[in-house]
C-alpha cells in the first residue's frame, strides 16, 4: 500500500509537469516551447525551455552539457547550442535520471562525438560515436531497469558512470567536479561544479520554483536533501553578504546565488523541523497535512499543484522511517 501511495504521488507530480520519472517524453505540446539562452558567466550558459535547465560549457575543446530536457526539444536545443559554439559536443552530464533532465540524451549524444584511439578504437568500434554521457551509476541502474512504455532508449543511457563521492574532469581550461550527493532528490544525484567559472549546476537538489520533490521511490530522502543543500552552501563563496561570487544554476528556475540557496535551505529546514515535531507528538500524515506546516512558504514555493503535499509526505515518511530504512 505504501508503494501505491508513493507511486500515486509521483504520478501526480509528473502530471503536473515538474518531472517525469519515466521518462523520455511528457505529454505536452513542445511545438510552443522556446529555448532561451542566458549567459551565466564567461563560457557558461543556461538554456531554459521545458523541463530542467540545461547548463552549457563551451571552449576551445568543445561543448559540455549538463542535462538535456525532453527529446522532442533536441533540435531546438541543438540550435541554441550552435548559436553559442560551433564545436562538437563531447560530454553530457546527467544530474539524475528523471526524464525532464535526460529525455534528450540520445539525440544530443548522437549530435556529438567522443575522442577515441589506441586500444579503444580497435576493440570497441563505436567508441568514438556520440558524446560521452556521464552520471552516477545509480542513474544508469534506474534508466536501464525501467521497462515501462516510455523508458529511455539505451542510446540515451550513461556511457561513463562513477560511484563514490565524485568524478573529476579538466575540460575547456577548467577543473570540473561532478559531486554525488547521496539519497537527496533521488539516489543518483550529482551537482556539477565548474571551478574556474565558479558556477554550480545543481540539478533538482535546488530549484527556485517549487518545494523539493523528494522522489522516495527512487531513493530520495529528506535528510539527504538537506545534506545536499548544505554541500551547496559549503561550496559557494559570495562576493559580499549573500550576493555574487559563486553562481548556481538550479534544476528549475532562475540563476541563483548564495542568498537564494540559503532561503531555500531555510524553508526546507523550518518545514522539516515542524514535521519532525508533529511526528514526535504522534500525529498521522493526514493530521500533519491538515496542520499546514508549509503555510508561510506556500506563496513562494507552492504554486505547483500537489507540491506542498508531496514535500510534506516525503518528509514525513523519511523522518518517521525506522533507522536503517530512510525511506
Amino acid at each position: 500500500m505504501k508503494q501505491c501511495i508513493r507511486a500515486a504521488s509521483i504520478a501526480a507530480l509528473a502530471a503536473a509537469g515538474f518531472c517525469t520519472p519515466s521518462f523520455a517524453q511528457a505529454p505536452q505540446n513542445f511545438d510552443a516551447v522556446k529555448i532561451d539562452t542566458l549567459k551565466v558567466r564567461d563560457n557558461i550558459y543556461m538554456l531554459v525551455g521545458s523541463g530542467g535547465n540545461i547548463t552549457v560549457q563551451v571552449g576551445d575543446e568543445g561543448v559540455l552539457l549538463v542535462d538535456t530536457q525532453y527529446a522532442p526539444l533536441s533540435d531546438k536545443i541543438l540550435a541554441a547550442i550552435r548559436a553559442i559554439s560551433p564545436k562538437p559536443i563531447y560530454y553530457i552530464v546527467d544530474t539524475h535520471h528523471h526524464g525532464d533532465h535526460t529525455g534528450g540524451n540520445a539525440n544530443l549524444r548522437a549530435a556529438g562525438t567522443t575522442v577515441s584511439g589506441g586500444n579503444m578504437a580497435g576493440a570497441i568500434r563505436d567508441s568514438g560515436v556520440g558524446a560521452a554521457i556521464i552520471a552516477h551509476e545509480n542513474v544508469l541502474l534506474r534508466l536501464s531497469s525501467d521497462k515501462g512504455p516510455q523508458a529511455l532508449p539505451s542510446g540515451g543511457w550513461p556511457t561513463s558512470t562513477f560511484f563514490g563521492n565524485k568524478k573529476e574532469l579538466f575540460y575547456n581550461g577548467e577543473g570540473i567536479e561532478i559531486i554525488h550527493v547521496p539519497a537527496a532528490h533521488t539516489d543518483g544525484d550529482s551537482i556539477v561544479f565548474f571551478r574556474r567559472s565558479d558556477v554550480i549546476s545543481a540539478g533538482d537538489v535546488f530549484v527556485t520554483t517549487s518545494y523539493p520533490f523528494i522522489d522516495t521511490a527512487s531513493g530520495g530522502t529528506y535528510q539527504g536533501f538537506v545534506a545536499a543543500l548544505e554541500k551547496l552552501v559549503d561550496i559557494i563563496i559570495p562576493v559580499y553578504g549573500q550576493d555574487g561570487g559563486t553562481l548556481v544554476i538550479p534544476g528549475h528556475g532562475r540563476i541563483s546565488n548564495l542568498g537564494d540557496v540559503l532561503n531555500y535551505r531555510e524553508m526546507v529546514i523550518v518545514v522539516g523541523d515542524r514535521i519532525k515535531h508533529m511526528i514526535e507528538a504522534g500525529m498521522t500524515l493526514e493530521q500533519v497535512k491538515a496542520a499546514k506546516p508549509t503555510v508561510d512558504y506556500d506563496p513562494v514555493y507552492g504554486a505547483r499543484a500537489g507540491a506542498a503535499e508531496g514535500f510534506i509526505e516525503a518528509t514525513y515518511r523519511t523522518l518517521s522511517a525506522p533507522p536503517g530504512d530512510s525511506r
Partner: protein
Amino acid sequence: MTGFDPIRCASRAAMLASALLAAPGFAQVNFAGVWNMTLTEDFPDRLPGPELGDYAGLPLNANDRARAQSWNASILSLPDYQCRVHPSDYANSFADIRMWHEFDTTTQELIAIHIQHFAWNTQRTIWMDGRPHPHPMAEHTSMGFSTGEWVGNTLKVTTTHLKEGWLRRNGVARSDAATVTEHFIRHDNHLTWSVFVQDPKYLEEPFFRNRDYTAAVGDAISAYPCESVVEVVLPEQGYFPHYLPGENPFLIEYARNHKIPSEAAMGGAKTMYPEYRKRLVELSPP
C-alpha cells in the same frame, strides 16, 4: 537689409540659448552628493531596529504573518547571515547615502545614476539609458535591477529582479516576485525618497514607505567592512533557528509594552488606514 532687426535677433538668440541649454537626455535634477538621513519619530524603528512582533501598519498577508511569527533573531549569529545586506527597497530606512550621475563622455547623455548606501556599502545602479530589464530567469540580487525615467523633476525608478528581502527587519519577508517603484524628489537641499512595494505573494495591498534626506556638503560615506565569524557552536548540519508555530514567546512583547491590541500589532492592510482607529476602540490591549 543690414540694419538691426529685433525680431530676427531675438529668434536667433532663442535658438542659441535652446542649443546651449537643452542638451538631449540631460538629467533634469542633480542628485549628486552625500545625503544625510533625517530621523524623526521613526528613529527606534530605523536605527536600533523594530521590536519583535511589531507588524502594525504593514499590509502583510496571513502567510507572511505566519512566517514572521516563526522568525528568530538568532539567525543573525549564523555566519552566512551576519553580512547579509539590506535590500534596496529597505535601504532608505537605514543610514546615509551618496548619489552620483554617470554620463557618456562624448554625448553627455545620462547613462546611470548610482547610489552608495552607508549600510554595508552596497551600491546600486539606476539605468537611465532605456535598456530593458533582464530575462525573468536572470540572477536576482539584493539591489535588484533598476531603470529610471524623469517625470517632470521627479526621478521615477522601477526595480525588478530582487532577491527575497524584508519589509521590516524583524522577520517580515518581502518575496522575490516584488516590483518596487521609487520616486526621488529634490526640494532644494531636501530629498524625499518614496518606496512603493507591490508583492503579489506576501502583501494584501502595496506597501508605501517615505523617507527624508538632507544634502550634506562636504560630508562623506564611511567604510562599512563586515567579516563573518563563528560566534557560537552550531550543529554541523540542518540547523536554522526559528520558532515552531505558537511557541514564539516574544510575539506579545510589543503589544504589551505599548498597550496596543494584539490584532493591531499583527498588522494587515486594514491597520494602515485611519478608519482602523474605530476598530481599535473595540479591542483591548493584552
